Every structure is written in C-alpha cells, then in structure tokens.
C-alpha cells in the first residue's frame, strides 16, 4: 500500500481551507502543536504542514493562475529518512507514510535540507522537526464513520480538488484519475519518486464571447435617427 494525495490543479481555487483544516486537526494530533510565533504581533509566523503557492503560468493574455498546494509527498525514495542520523524519521513499510518520531529527533535540520518540497519545518518550541502525517491519527480511526477516515485537508476542500487513496493499487480511484488525466509528480528529475501527484488543468476551448461589433458613435447616432424617423 502506498497512501498519498492527488491534487487537481484544474479545480483548486487557492482558498487555503486545506491548510487551515490541517493546522486545526494536527494542532491536537500526534505531532502537535504546530507552534505559532508572535501570533498576534506585527510579524506572525509559525509551523504549517501544508502551504499553497499561486503561480502565473504563461504570458498575459494567454495566462492562467495556478494554485499549487504542497505538503509531504510521502516519497518512495524518501531521502529525508535516509539522511536522518537518529532514526527519528521513518517510512512505514505497510502504507508508505513518512513520519518523525518526536521523542528521537535532535533537531539537526538535515532532513529538511534533503527534502526538495519544503515539507518539513522545525518547531522552535519543541526543537524537533514536524511534518504532514497524512492524518495517520484519522485515517485508521475506527471510531470515525468510514467516510471521514480521510485526511483533514481532503475532507474540508470545498472544491473537491484533493483525492486520497492507495497509489499502489492500479484500480483505485486515485490511480485511475492520475492515469486518465495525465497526473504528474513535482521535480521527477530528482528521483525522489513522490507518491503525491498533481492533475494538470484540462485543455478547454476558448470561452465563447458575446457578439459585440465595434460601431462608431456617428453610426449609432445615424441608426437611432433612422429608427426615430421610421416611427
């Protein structure tokens, strides 16, 4: 099993609801809190497991805004785990989720250096590295109704741009949508083989424009006069 996310860049509107839901759930989760620094001051900052950046693709007027949510990709070749000297970072063999054991981490930042996706952030308060857990404390919780056993970001997304599932199973919904929509990985050239995939915007014909020929003021005036005289 290889659990991960598939994010539809065609649908994402960049509302940051997934980031907020993530912060809310994980603040009381297994690696919480996600410490905020100076939260009510002039320059608030803090730990987030999910960040959304917006890009302008193409040149105006043939341009498009693409919102690009990024969290841990739960890579197949997770170098963050390879480089960790203490054994705090590990990848679960059963489902491929990459986690940090908060009791073992010494806060050397080396795993964050090895991560190309900016998924890991040091919590200054605890001195340990924190990252997306794929809501491991949610997706296996049998107390929750089965439909809610999904990461908080996926459940909250108002545009349903996020899918969660097993990317090892070729017939799962996530694998199917990746295959059919031409899903891709970020920075495949680095060889990390991230589990999370992105679906590119659909190719659509140009939007239909209303017929609106340019008519000079003089012609409009003549037309109006002609109509008025005909009456």
């Amino acid at each position, binding site marked *: 099993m290889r659990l991960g996310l598939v994010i539809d860049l065609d649908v994402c509107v*960049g509302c940051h609801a997934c980031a907020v839901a993530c912060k809310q759930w994980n603040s009381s989760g297994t690696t919480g809190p996600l410490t905020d620094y100076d939260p009510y001051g002039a320059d608030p900052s803090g730990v987030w497991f999910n960040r959304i950046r917006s890009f*302008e*693709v193409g040149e105006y007027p043939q341009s498009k805004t693409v919102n690009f949510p990024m969290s841990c990709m739960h890579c197949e070749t997770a170098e963050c785990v390879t*480089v960790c000297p203490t054994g705090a970072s590990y990848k679960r063999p059963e489902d491929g989720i990459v986690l940090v054991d908060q009791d073992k981490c010494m806060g050397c930042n080396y795993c*964050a250096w090895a991560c190309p*996706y900016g998924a890991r952030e040091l919590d200054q308060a605890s001195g340990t590295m924190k990252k997306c857990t794929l809501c491991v404390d949610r997706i296996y919780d049998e107390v929750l109704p089965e439909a809610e056993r999904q990461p908080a970001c996926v459940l909250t997304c108002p545009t349903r741009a996020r899918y969660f599932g097993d990317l090892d199973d070729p017939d799962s919904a996530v694998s199917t949508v990746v295959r059919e929509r031409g899903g891709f*990985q970020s920075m495949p050239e680095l060889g990390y083989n991230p589990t999370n995939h992105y679906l590119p915007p659909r190719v659509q014909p140009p939007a239909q424009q209303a017929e609106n020929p340019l008519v000079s003021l003089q012609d409009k005036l003549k037309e109006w006069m002609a109509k008025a005289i005909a009456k």
Partner: protein
Amino acid sequence: MHPAISVIVFTVASGAGFGLVILAALFSAFGIGGGLSLGETMTAGGLGLVLATVGLLSSTFHLANPRNAWRAFNRFRTSWLSREGVFAVLFYPVAILYFGGLWFLDGAMTGALQGMAVLTILLAVAVVFSTGMIYACLRTIRQWNTSLVPANYLLMGLASGGVLLTTVLAYTKGPALVTVATTTLTLLVAAGIGKLIYYFWIGKPQGSTINTATGFTRAGVRLFESGQSSGAFLNKEFGYQAPISLVHRLRLVVYALAFVIPMALMVLLLQNGMGVLALMTVFSILAGLAVERWLFFAEARHVVNLFYGAQRT
C-alpha cells in the same frame, strides 16, 4: 543556504585538526624526510586533537534538541551525518593509543604503533570524507551534489593541517621541515586547483527549475503569491542569498588568503626557515577557509527557493 557560524567553525577547525593528525601520524610513524621528534609529534598530535574536538563540539551548537544527540550514531547504514559521528568516536581511542603509546615508549617506533598510525590516518580521512559527503549527497542542492565537495574538504583539511605542522617544525627547527613544507605547498596547490574547478563547475546552469517543480514545462511560470504574510522556517533556513558582487569579491579573498598568500609564504619559508612566516600562514589560511566555508553555504541554492520566486537553482 543560511551560513551558520557553528557549522563554519566546526568544518574549518575539525578539517585542520584531522589534517594535522593525519600528517603528524604519517611523518612520525614512517620517518619521512627525517621524521618527527617525540616533542614535535606530541605537540602536533595534541594540537590536532584539540582542534578536531573544538570543531566537533561546535557542531552540536546548531542542534535544536541536543539532548537527543546521542541517538545520532543510530543510522550508520544510511546517513553520512551518523557515519561522521561514528568514525569520530572510533578515531579518538585509536589516536590516543598511537600518540599515548609513542609517549609511553619514549619515542621508540614499533610495528604495532605503525599499525595504530595507519588506523588513525584511515579513520581521520573517513571523518573528513564523511563531512564532505554530508553535503555532497544532497540532490536538493546542486552546488553541493558533486564529488568535488568531499575531495575539496579532504584537500583543504590536509593543506591547513600541513600549514600547522610546518609551523610546529619551523619553531623546533626539526629535520623534516623541508619535506613537510614542500608537501604542504603541494597540498595547497592541489586544494587551490580543486576549489577553482568547483567555482567553474557551479557556474554552469543546471538543475531543477520552476517549470519542473510545477509541471508546467511548456510555458513561463512565475510566482504570483507565496501564500505567507511573513517568513517562516523555510525562508530562514534556505532563503539567504548573498549579493553576486559580494560573492565575486569574497572568492578573490578566498583565493588570496587560503591559497596564494600561504603558497607564497611557504616558498619564502623554504628559503629562510623563519618561524614567524609559518605563523602568518596559519592565520591567513584559517581566515581564508572560514570565508571559503561561508561562501560554500551562501552560494548553495536549495530547490525550495523555487517556491518562493526563484526561476532556477
């Protein structure tokens, strides 16, 4: 990358310390160029161990949670950081056995001691090589992901260690002074060439771009909004970028202080053997290598910067 003072002190001091121990063990155990006297070996070995220890201790200051530092020996099989720690811990008893044994036998060289010297040298090389590999194994930072990095760490460590050993011999007027100074000069030239190749190599455009990062490879992509109102961990750790004019000026400083001036002083020293020249070389090369190390971090561009406006790394 943010250049942390603790890591600069660590790599420069431990590089010079291990380099000095390597050369002291080599010249004393095998009597190269007339060999070292007991006093010279003890001074050089002791100074090398102190420098290596200061460096290694300094490296623990950048840990956010040092009470778990003892766990760093766990992942020897995969992590170069762990390997560096393990080799360093193995190095101390072997080095102390060699230098202590030599002291105990009052300078009489035996086959067992020579074996210890070889082990000391191998472990010291392993530590410095691991330090280089900590950086060189990261595919996320193209300026580091090259075999030039461990090669340069070894050459610069040996060159600065050679300068220190030359200084010891210049004050004791030891018989091996000419051989050690000549070896140091060779190492300085090799280290300088290594660094020159490195500076040319990192100038070549390569590596990930914002297009491969976002998957839009057939159109221009530019950051519209980072989604943050202020800097966070990623910006502090990876965002530092030195102005290009400063980088170019500092490269000249590195060349002058770490390579050209030490080479010139070594040539002068070989002609008149004045101890003060060797001492000047020590200050010059250590200052030069500190600037070199600062640049090593300041010039490194982590791919995360792509998500904060960089077009390429």
